[in-house]
């Protein structure tokens, strides 16, 4: 049983959370999906790619239900730091204004905590849609300009594709060397504290079937369901 009286106390307080501004309320104008707009230009290459990405998840079909209520933005712990809040991001996607979203910091700041998805009254899988945008941005390098998350993902995939498993110590070192080598000095203290407690081994077992694992990756790579 859920204690409803306790639930009231559970609403997270959000210091520094800003109130909605008139700019938020204005939002982007057009909110219809590009493919249903009569007399519109034919969908661009970018739109086709996005439709393909979003089509891989059940999220795509939910997009048109958005009523722009803003619960997603209100629930997001990192919305105050985003160029484009989740509510505006959904509006931009529906308006076909993908480029603005791809150039913003929004998808890179999202920590995929799913708070927006859980609370959306229209049942839109916002996190999954942002994942689709993120994949598109990574695929088209022009939109993933040396962002930290992009580099961390690349370092992570580099390690996992070779060993079949992640190695935390190597991940941080590889990532820092590619981004801010000087920060390694700051990380080192924590690294030593963890190592002393046996929590940061340099060598961790790889998968035994490494060949089999990389074969699967090879066959999966570049496959598209479209």
């Amino acid at each position, binding site marked *: 049983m859920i204690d409803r009286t306790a639930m009231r106390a559970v609403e997270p*307080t959000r210091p520094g959370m800003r109130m909605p501004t008139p700019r938020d309320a204005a939002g982007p104008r057009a909110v219809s999906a590009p493919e249903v707009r009569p007399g519109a230009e034919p969908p661009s290459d970018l739109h086709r790619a996005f439709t393909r990405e979003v089509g891989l998840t059940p999220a795509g079909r939910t997009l048109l239900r958005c009523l722009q209520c803003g619960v997603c933005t209100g629930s997001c712990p*990192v919305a105050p730091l985003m160029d484009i809040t989740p509510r505006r991001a959904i509006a931009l996607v529906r308006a076909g204004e993908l480029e603005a979203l791809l150039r913003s910091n929004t998808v890179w700041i999202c920590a995929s905590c799913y*708070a927006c*998805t859980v609370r959306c009254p229209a049942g839109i899988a916002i996190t999954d849609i942002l994942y689709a945008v993120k994949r598109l941005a990574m695929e088209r390098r022009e939109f993933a300009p040396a962002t930290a998350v992009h580099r961390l993902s690349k370092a992570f995939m580099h390690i996992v594709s070779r060993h079949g*498993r992640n190695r935390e110590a190597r991940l941080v070192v590889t*990532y820092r060397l590619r981004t801010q080598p000087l920060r390694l000095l700051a990380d080192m203290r924590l690294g030593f504290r963890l190592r002393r407690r*046996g929590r940061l081994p340099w060598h961790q077992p790889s998968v035994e079937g490494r060949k089999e694992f990389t074969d699967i*990756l090879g*066959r999966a*790579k570049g496959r598209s369901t479209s």
Partner: protein
Amino acid sequence: MEYAYYPGCSLQATARSYDESLRTVFSMLDLRLHEIPDWNCCGATMYMSVDQVLASCISARTLALAERLGHDIVAPCSSCFTILNKTRRLLTQNPDLARCVGEALEPSGLRTTGCVRVRHPLEVLINDVGIESIAGAARRDLAPTRVAHYYGCQIVRQEEPFDDRQHPTTMDRLFEALGAHNVPFSMKVRCCGGMLMTTTPEVGERLAAEILECARSGGADCIVTTCPLCQINLEAYQKRVAPKARPVPVLFFTQLLGLALGAEPKELGLHRQLVPFALAEAHATLHS
């Protein structure tokens, strides 16, 4: 009861104590864990951000290996738990994706049918053993310990969660039955920042600071969590985010549970804590 155990990469490194305490607690309660032979990384949020087909293939390999064992999977890491569940769901909902994944796995003699469930150890303990039986097996009273229960974000946010999505109470009820005092903690499902602590520290540190402050102001002796990333984000950066504040130990729920069941601190990996934790002396002794 027997389970296919998927430790995940973190439990071999920064979260070793989660692995140690989970194995201890499960064996004390007569639950058998069979580690999935040659399991691989779940792909985490990283692969999902780059390539959906690739991400699904990676998780599907582990699902297929577990199906050979024929037991439900126990996945303690919140991220692994969420990703494996998500892949299992996607493969049943999206036949095109399932076909691509099937074609990539098939030459290696692997196949997924989605017949094994992916479960979190917390849910396994509550549903397969039950709070009453666990409380009956307890050999230490947690009475004076004031606990903040931190579920983190991902564990209850998938499509068919085992607890309320915004106000989960599983851990609260479990530890209350073991004598602990639950402190009011409004940040129980707030995101810890995940990888943002590495990529965008100014954002990650702010999120961690808010969660820690909420626990401190409730008077918590410790924070109990279910996720390796939450644990390290909350434990390792305390000095950086709030240099003058009282340090708060951050434990895996299996560590505190193990203490209640009478395990030795070392069997639970408590010597690996950066912020040390021990039960109040009077309650550290065992009763039968």
